[in-house]
């Protein structure tokens, strides 16, 4: 009985991994935006990023 459940679960895992790989999933976090204007190509400074202003001294000795 355990065996059937486990195999089903395992196949589900495999299917998920395959689907993830095929559809290009990623584990990294990011932000999606729409309607970025074409003017950004001429003026990259006009683009406001969520991640900008990251002034962070992260370490080292």
């Amino acid at each position, binding site marked *: 009985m355990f065996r059937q459940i486990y195999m089903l679960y395992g196949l589900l895992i495999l299917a998920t991994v395959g689907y993830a790989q*095929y559809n*290009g*999933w990623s584990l990294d976090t990011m932000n999606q935006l729409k309607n970025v204007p074409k003017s950004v*190509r001429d003026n990259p400074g006009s683009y406001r990023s969520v991640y900008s202003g*990251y*002034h962070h001294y*992260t370490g080292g000795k």
Partner: protein
Amino acid sequence: MNPQPPPVGGPKPRVSGLNCPNCGGSITLRALGQASSVVCEGCGSILDAKDPKLQIIQTFHRIVSSDPPLIPLGTRGKIRGTDYEVIGFERRTITVDLVEYHWHEYILFNPYKGFRYLTEYQGHWNDISICKELPSMSSSFNISPRVNYLGESYQHFQSADANTDFVLGEFPWQVRVGERASVTDYVHPPRVLSGEKMAGEVTWSIGEYIPGRDVWKAFNLPGSPPAAIGVYENEPSPFRANLKAVWIGFAALAFGLLVMMIGFDVFAMNSSVFQGAYRFTSGYPRAEASFVTNTFELGGRPSNVEVTTSTDLQNNWIYLNYALINQDTGQAWDFGREVSFYSGYDSDGSWTEGSRNAAIVVPSVPPGQYYLRIEPEADTVHPPVTYTVEVRRDVPVSSFYGIGFLALLIPAILITWRSASFEKSRWSESDHPHSPIIPEGS
């Protein structure tokens, strides 16, 4: 012409009503004359059932009321397709490490099939009958670690001396309260092979574990059976049977995962669609650091995009804001990566911290024309950093397979651990609590 001959054989037996010679109470004989001894319920005297005058064999002080039989005497039930009547009951005790353990035995009777026994200990029941065949080492009653019986190997579980505490009803042997027997149990779950030596004679019986609810169903008893406490010597493991199957399943699934990983590795495009090299210096006054790259094409089906940053950092850090922008649709993915690398030399030797490179995977990017907007950041004053940015289309993500492998492994480990705990619990009650778990072959 001859008259009818008298009937053959002796007088017919019946469930007879007799009186106890000690107290006069009525005695019911259910075993139709087959029993050797019968106990008077009124005064607790053990009487000779074969003697028509029911001679008293032994009297004992009754302590029955505190521990009555769970299946009342006289109840009939179906075991293995045959009707049996409960005719006798006894409580026996073994003492191990100064602790007393009691169990109960029920004598079952059928006039054609003879006698059978049910034992009960802490809610665990066993269906027992006398062996017709001898187990492999029976001639000497010495304890050996393993015994073979009917093609199965049984492991020694426990040897102890059993004392009969009290008795009720009828018995096919001349039972005595206080009689002692040497009992040895060998197990091969769900069966148990039990050898009993009493007064020089050795009897072997074979038992099979039966769940309490099956006993209740067989005897049509009201209510529910007592809960089973702990793991009993021959209680079948709900895990053992599945363990091997699950690990074989794991091997198959892990192999499948490997095949998938290799497959994607071979068939993924993994094409490098853009590469650029840049230099970030701290200028004064600070110029606009952001810039855009040339456009590049991301082809194929919607798949991932890997953006790798490779630097020449030395004891420094840089933060890169990225935006992957679709030139036509205006759809963008916004992400950032910090890259830092430090190294040095101290009393333990040389050390490093961080990495010169960083990669990020952008999910499910539809095909089209794209460019990157890059905005580097660093300390206000910093040495110049040279870095390259590479964009690859449709890369295999190895961490999926790692996670998948773990997900497959965890249930297999869990069931193995639970099975091991179950067996440990089983053997903790035996003479060999630290014995290694010997796998049950067939």
